[in-house]
């Protein structure tokens, strides 16, 4: 391996070990008690669930605080899924990098990162479950632990066949990347892009702790955001070194390797196609969130009737708002950042280099989708009282508590 690349890997690994935040994170989470920080914001105000929508405008100060905390819960529930997948693909890629000189340094780095991911998952789930139990007595955004092949995003526009096909593709990628150094490196292009997006939002979340007038007294979830942000900086760095530098030490990819690599990045574009009026910075497909938002509005926090909750949701999801504009703006910044991040990877197809799939989404397209899908939701009965739904949630809850 070229000397400079090795040096970069060495600095990244050494500093990550020295500045590892998992001990601080584990300690913070052990001390987390929701009642200690239930009356304060955990993120900058603009990072609140449904910020800048009619719901936000109409909410009391207390409700706004809850929406701010629910952003944290929902956002990091998504990150849990991403980290579960990362742990798995770190391992398969480490196997694929075995053929690389100095592979041990890379693998030791990935081992450290996987251990950090496990700590992050524990922190996010411990806090989120406690919050949802205290607020709702049930799970809403938090879900039981999943395997690495479950969708990491909430997709309402999927079906059993598509879910099965995606699972097969992910399993196959894991298998072949464990025996192919180029594909093992290519995985880090996808991981880099995903982490790059994470950094856009997590930097702002971590600032809440960094700029807190008394950081030691800051709410524990805000501290966790900061610790997570710091660990992930090293993860982004290893993604960048492996996908941009280590890959240059390999033979040019074969046609098959190029195909698999490009399909992987195209899948990433597909995952990052949507933007959400409810959560700025996550690519959730909002119709998949209707049921969850409905439960929040019908809960004792908002106490809305069935009709009021649906009318509020109609206004939030099917009409333009400041919140929607902000989410679209984050989506555009992410897309432009990805273009620059991958611009030197000459094996990529044009549509992956210019992120043309992501680029086809727009506010008007978002609104057209919501207006179509919301009608179906609106015509359903009161989901809140559905016996089957209540039963399902009880079982889900029992499995995690």
């Amino acid at each position, binding site marked *: 391996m070229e000397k400079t690349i090795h040096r970069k890997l060495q600095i990244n690994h050494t500093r990550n070990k020295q500045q590892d935040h998992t001990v601080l994170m584990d300690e913070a989470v052990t001390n987390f008690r929701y009642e200690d920080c239930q009356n304060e914001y955990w993120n900058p105000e603009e990072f609140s669930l449904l910020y800048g929508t009619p719901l936000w405008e109409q909410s009391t100060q207390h409700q706004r605080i809850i929406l701010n905390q629910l952003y944290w819960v929902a956002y990091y529930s998504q990150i849990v899924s991403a980290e579960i997948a990362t742990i798995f693909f770190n391992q398969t890629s480490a196997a694929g990098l075995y053929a690389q000189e100095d592979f041990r340094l890379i693998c030791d780095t990935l081992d450290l990162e996987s251990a950090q991911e496990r700590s992050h998952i524990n922190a996010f789930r411990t806090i989120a479950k406690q919050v949802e139990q205290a607020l709702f007595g049930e799970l809403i955004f938090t879900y039981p632990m999943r395997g690495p092949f479950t969708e990491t995003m909430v997709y309402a526009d999927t079906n059993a066949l598509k879910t099965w096909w995606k699972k097969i593709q992910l399993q196959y990628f894991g298998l072949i990347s464990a025996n192919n150094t180029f594909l093992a490196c290519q995985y880090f292009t996808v991981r880099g892009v995903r982490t790059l997006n994470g950094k856009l939002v997590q*930097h702002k979340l971590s600032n809440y702790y960094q700029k807190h007038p008394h950081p030691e007294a800051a709410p524990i979830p805000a501290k966790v955001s900061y610790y997570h942000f710091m660990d992930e*900086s090293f993860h982004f*760095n290893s993604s960048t070194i492996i996908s941009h530098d280590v890959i240059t030490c390999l033979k040019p990819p074969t046609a098959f390797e190029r195909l698999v690599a490009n399909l992987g990045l195209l899948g990433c574009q597909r995952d990052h196609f949507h933007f959400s009026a409810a959560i700025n910075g996550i690519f959730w497909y909002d119709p998949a969130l209707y049921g969850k938002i409905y439960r929040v509005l019908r809960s004792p926090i908002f106490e809305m009737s069935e009709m009021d909750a649906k009318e509020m949701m109609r206004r939030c999801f099917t009409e333009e708002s400041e919140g929607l504009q902000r989410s679209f703006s984050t989506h*555009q910044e992410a897309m432009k*950042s990805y273009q620059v991040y991958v611009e030197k990877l000459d094996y990529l197809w044009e549509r992956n280099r210019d992120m043309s799939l992501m680029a086809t989404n727009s506010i008007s397209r978002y609104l057209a989708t919501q207006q179509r899908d919301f009608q179906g939701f609106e015509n359903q009965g009161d989901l809140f009282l559905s016996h089957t739904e209540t039963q399902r949630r009880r079982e889900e809850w029992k499995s995690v508590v």
Partner: protein
Amino acid sequence: MAEFCKISFPGSDFVPITLECHQSLSEHLTIQNSPVLFGCRTGICGTCLVEVIGDISPPQPDEQEMLETLAANHPHARLACKLDVTANIEICKIELSD
């Protein structure tokens, strides 16, 4: 010391940006309003490696270590996310392969 600092991007179409002194560049510059891509935002990954012309304080040891690895031949190389801006500066992107 100036109260406001102008950040210019010579050699590009990006219009200058005025910030208060000591404001963090990574909170105000994006890939849409500047030629700088911020990656990790903590001075590690090198995606925000830039050439800076202007009066700025020298790098701290951690940043220096990264600069020696990433751009040993660029005397004005800096990591944009670590800059403490206290005067008008000009920023140009450095290509890592240089």
